[in-house]
């Protein structure tokens, strides 16, 4: 469960997030959508403590994240762009993360097999393709069985086979009552995975609700058109 209260964030004079309040529920996939530069990544990064808030607060499982880092034991994060120290291997990064985290149930075998990663994990990162690095990121994020999973355009670099396996994986995690936050520009993906949609525009929440309620409200049958309508309305 993630609770955001009156969150504002500025970069220089640019106001990226404007007084945002929302709560993200356990056992649901919440998709954050919006055009480029609408503040999706900044919103995600404020939950992770990667950006410092100008005002407002973020609580994860009832704990205020300010000056706290242990709450990240419960979070798995797949960033938009994956890049690692080029001379280290996937296995080395995995064991580094193992040493940093506490209280986890580690299970990586299934993901490694499905993504065919076992050989790739022994190669240094400079020899891996972008898609493979992305798979390693997914592995690191999910192998520790975190309660909260945060995905920033996770399927952007994946081939169709891996991408569909990844979606199955997310649905399995949802069954396990995880809190999942996802950003994506692929509407079919959101329609497949998400329960809740948060539509961000210029740093403000313009819509929050289920996909069905969004479709009903906009009288459209396709999510893509409904979102486009929301954008045009502004």
């Amino acid at each position, binding site marked *: 469960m993630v609770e955001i209260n009156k969150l504002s964030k500025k970069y220089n004079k640019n106001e990226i997030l404007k007084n945002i309040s929302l709560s993200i529920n356990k056992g649901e996939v919440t998709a954050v959508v919006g055009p480029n530069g609408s503040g999706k990544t900044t919103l995600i990064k404020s939950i992770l403590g990667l950006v410092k808030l100008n005002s407002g607060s973020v609580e994860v499982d009832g704990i205020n994240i300010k000056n706290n880092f242990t709450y990240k034991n419960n979070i798995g994060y797949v960033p938009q762009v994956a890049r690692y*120290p080029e001379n280290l291997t996937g296995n080395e990064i995995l064991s580094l993360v193992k040493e940093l985290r506490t209280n986890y149930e580690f299970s990586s075998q299934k993901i490694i097999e499905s993504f065919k990663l076992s050989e790739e994990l022994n190669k240094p990162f400079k020899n891996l393709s972008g898609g493979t690095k992305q798979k390693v990121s997914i592995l690191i994020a999910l192998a520790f069985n975190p309660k909260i999973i945060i995905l920033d355009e996770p399927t952007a670099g994946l081939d169709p086979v891996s991408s569909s396996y990844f979606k199955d994986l997310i649905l399995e995690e949802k069954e396990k009552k995880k809190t999942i936050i996802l950003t994506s520009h692929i509407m079919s993906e959101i329609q497949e995975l998400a329960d809740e949609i948060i539509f961000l525009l210029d740093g403000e929440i313009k819509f929050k609700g289920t996909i069905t309620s969004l479709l009903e409200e906009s009288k459209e049958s396709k999510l893509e058109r409904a979102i486009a309508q929301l954008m045009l309305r502004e």
Partner: protein
Amino acid sequence: MHLMNKILLYEIHNTIRNKWIIIYSFFFFFIGYALFAFSGDGSKAFISLMNIVLFIIPIVALVFGSIFLYNSREFIEMMLSQPIDRKSLFFGLYLGTALPLIFSWIIGITIPYFLFTVNYNNTEELILVIIIGSLLTIIFTAIAFLIALKQDDKSKGLAYSIFVWLILAILYDGLVLLIIYTFEDYPLDKFIIGLSIINPIDLGRIFFLIQFNISALMGYTGAIFQKFFGANLGIVISSFCMILWVILPVYLSLKLFGKKDF
């Protein structure tokens, strides 16, 4: 502390496999070979070595340090999403860059010393060069981190790094001469001492030359330094300023790292 050591260990693993670190080691090996095998007089070889150290180490630390930090941006993001505090991550990254640079050149220079000098009676000089070179690595890696944290644009950051080196290593001597020439009618001693304190490269040079009392090679700032403080106090003051130079940029980059949005 505990978390920092873990990061540091992996960072060192990553950095020592970097081909530039290996090339850096070989560079000092060949310099050492050329100086020790062909120079009859040990002291002369060390003065030449000191000049190369004062020139090369700052630029390597600046460029390598800033490129390293720019290339680690996404990795820092990923690490900060793990349960680790920013301070531990910062020191892990910083020492993970500075220590391999130090090891690399120390190994490079020490091997030819033991292979090619006939009687090892210059070990004291070698140790002093190693101390000064290591301090310069620590200082300039921290300055590189400071620049890379302050400036998000990689090419601008690199340009600033090179600019800092140009000023401190090249233009500085000319600037001092120009000031002395222009204001020759005024008492400049204290001002010149102030100038040498703001340049860690000059401090390193003064430290080395006072230690070995090679006043002829000391340059203007060094001579004034010695005249003003005397040899012993000169050494104390120059080493104190060197230590300040280590603490200040590390402290400032740590502060920046703590506040930065990744």
